[in-house]
């Protein structure tokens, strides 16, 4: 019961935060609001007992992406320009997509139900065999690093490429400035 109340209040605060992030025009304040948004989302994940997702949300959403957005603000300036177009068509697309997603959740199994495909397909094999197959006590680690090793390798490649891209974007300008100050 109390978990439902916490969920409803936290989701309401999430909606308020999202609307505030759209309405504010000071980008520095928007970054602050985004940080609050990810802390709220991480709390929702913890209340829903998805602790590992909450770890990721806190590290990526509140930690890294705040710093990356601040770095972007120091490049592009603090104030948002007035948009050149009317937002009605994007709002229509977003509302239709959101309605389709909500319609899709109607067919999903109930929260915490045992007989879902996720719990019956291959998870019992992992839980029973990972000790004798891999030999690591932590099942999540053996799934990520061994059973789905190629998947994890692909994810690491994507993250590494994205990191190189961000470093390139942030580094080019500084080098140009140094060249200008020398010449």
């Amino acid at each position, binding site marked *: 019961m*109390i978990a439902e109340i*916490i969920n409803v*209040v*936290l989701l309401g*605060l999430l909606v*308020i*935060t999202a609307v*505030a992030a759209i309405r*504010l025009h000071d980008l*520095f*304040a928007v*970054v*602050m*609001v985004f*940080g*609050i948004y990810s*802390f*709220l989302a*991480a*709390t929702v994940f*913890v*209340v829903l007992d998805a*602790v590992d997702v*909450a*770890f990721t949300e*806190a*590290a990526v959403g*509140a*930690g890294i992406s*705040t*710093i990356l957005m*601040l*770095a972007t*603000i*120091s490049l592009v300036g603090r104030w948002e320009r007035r948009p050149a177009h009317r937002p009605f068509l994007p709002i229509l697309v977003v509302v239709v997509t959101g309605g389709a997603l909500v319609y899709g959740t109607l067919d999903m199994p109930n929260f915490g139900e045992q007989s879902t495909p996720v719990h019956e397909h291959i998870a019992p094999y992992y839980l029973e065999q990972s000790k004798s197959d891999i030999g690591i006590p932590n099942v999540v680690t053996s799934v990520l690093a061994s059973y789905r090793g190629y998947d994890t390798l692909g994810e690491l490649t994507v993250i590494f490429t994205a990191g190189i891209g961000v470093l390139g974007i*942030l580094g080019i300008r*500084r080098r140009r*400035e140094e060249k200008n*100050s020398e010449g």
Partner: protein
Amino acid sequence: MLIIVVIALLMAMALALLRAIRGPTVYDRILAANVFSTKTILMITTFGFFVGRPELYIDIAIMYGLIGFIGTVAVLKVSEFGNLGQSGPQSGGQ
């Protein structure tokens, strides 16, 4: 008892969010975000005691504290120096 703590924390979260949205100066918003991260840590710890597995949830709360600290330091650095890449204030001879 824990229910009262949870309700008080939710109200404090709402007030911090209000200050982050309304806050006239940058520092109000930085402080509001910092307060919000503290409230998140307290909320997770309280929820851990509520569920009955405090040892697991306190680990998560400690990591949230570290992340909130890093974020606050980065935000303050940008608001003070206007740049993340340099170790001190920007030199005047640019």
